[in-house]
């Protein structure tokens, strides 16, 4: 195999592209983030037709293909739908391992919200356990304004 490269001295050109992004959250998501930041409230949208409650909030119900008009306030508590425990420290991880990712269905919602789970040992985590949002004191209008979810004792 190495023989075929024997007489070749390839030149390599290293480069990169620089594409800074600024994504518009849109009016619907902006309301969610404003409520999170200013009032520590988790808001969802409710489809007029099928009554599904979405968190993250959606302007359009993907099943009914209708714009969701109604806002509903959700509990900051819910149940764990599924999870994983990340053991290897990668550059993309904002925390020290073990890091627990969970999908949390808040009381009153029909969809799962992806977030961190903390204040629990990996061995104690279980699907179906009840969790509660822990808000940061300093909030910036981002999903990280919830630092993580923790078990309710």
């Amino acid at each position, binding site marked *: 195999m190495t023989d075929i490269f024997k007489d070749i001295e390839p030149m390599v*050109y290293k*480069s990169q*592209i*620089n*594409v*800074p*992004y*600024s*994504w*518009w*959250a*849109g*009016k*619907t*998501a902006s309301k969610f983030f404003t409520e999170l930041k200013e009032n520590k409230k988790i808001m969802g949208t409710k489809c007029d037709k099928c009554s599904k409650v979405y968190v993250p909030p*959606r*302007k*359009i119900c*993907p*099943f009914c*293909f209708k*714009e969701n008009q109604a806002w509903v306030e959700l509990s900051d508590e819910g149940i764990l739908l599924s999870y994983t425990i990340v053991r290897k420290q990668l550059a993309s991880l904002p925390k020290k391992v073990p890091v627990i990712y969970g999908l949390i269905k808040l009381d009153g919602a029909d969809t799962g919200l992806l977030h961190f789970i903390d204040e629990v040992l990996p061995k104690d985590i279980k699907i179906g356990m009840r969790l509660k949002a822990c808000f940061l004191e300093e909030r910036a209008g981002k999903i990280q304004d919830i630092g993580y979810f923790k078990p309710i004792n």
Partner: protein
Amino acid sequence: MGKKRVAIIGTGQTYHKSHRPDVNGQELIHEAVSSALCDADLTIADIDAIVIGNMDHFEGINYVDCWSVDGSGGVMKPIIKLTTGGTTGSTIAIGGYHLVASGLFEKVLVIGWEKNSESDTTGAITTAFDPVWDRLVFAGAISGLAVEAQAYMARYGATDRDGARVSVRDRKHACNNPHAQLRKEVTIEDVLASPMLADPIHLLDVCPRTDGACAVIMANEDVAPKLASKLDWIWATSSRHKYTYIGDVNWGELDSMYNASREIYKKAGIKEPNKEISVIELYQPYSFAGIIWIEDMGIVPRGKGAEYIWSGATDMGGELPINPSGGVIACNPIGATGLIRCAEAAMQVMGKADIRQVPDVNFAISTGFGGCMWTDMILHGQKKPDF
């Protein structure tokens, strides 16, 4: 021609703007899709498959077919993303046509969209060029167009006033189009006094960056006449590419457009395009292309493009109006731009173009153009194709 003849039965567009901070990408797409469904008097349940497209890197979302289903209506439907740079909008139209013409799908929804305001488009466009050769010494979209214009001016003696006249036309036409982003008339002097971007292209010679979406619904010949009273039949499509490196191009003539148009004319039996075609929606990202490319299309002989433009033949009311919508110079949500040309041509054939309607349209042509000098072309007709 495939197994089935294909007609466009409805179109929809957003009101295109420089920024749409009030919606995310899915929500923007939903506006165009809702509008097209309303135009065709269908619901999303009637749609059998979806083709969607936008520019690579522009929004940094590379699995748009999946991510966009809230807006596209693609939940639990066959959906495919096509992306071919500047021609994306025309490629998705041709792709949708292929899906329906093949006989595999009865009704197909085609969606093009872009939120140009979300990134630095020059960085993204530069990835269309070869990384070892061209990319290190050449960048962005305007440089290639400027090189084309310089070469044409040297070959045929055109001037910057000739280019400006095309910009004056398109910007005037745009005032009739409520969906266009820029709706303000300019004079030749305004164009020439605007900042020089890359010789000989002034700011008012080129397209803006736009947030917008467009959707087109196609149906096969078995169902289309039952679904809509006004149909736009797709007679022929064509796609041509030429080069790997920028030096491969025959600068000053657009060979891909010459070839694509001849394929279309041959398929449809068109002998005198300037007489037989009623209107063109040309993907013309800058003014000089409005002179050069009508020569490549055989509308006028080589070197006669400027004279034809100055005669008023391509203005509203002229022999062959070009860009009644105002075209790309007035509005450019890139992934949607080619599909907007297709939708506007369809509206002309269907008689739905409102105050920008050209009377008695029999054949219309819409085109797509990509920065690497490639061409897509679609021939739209009022009558059902006889082949």
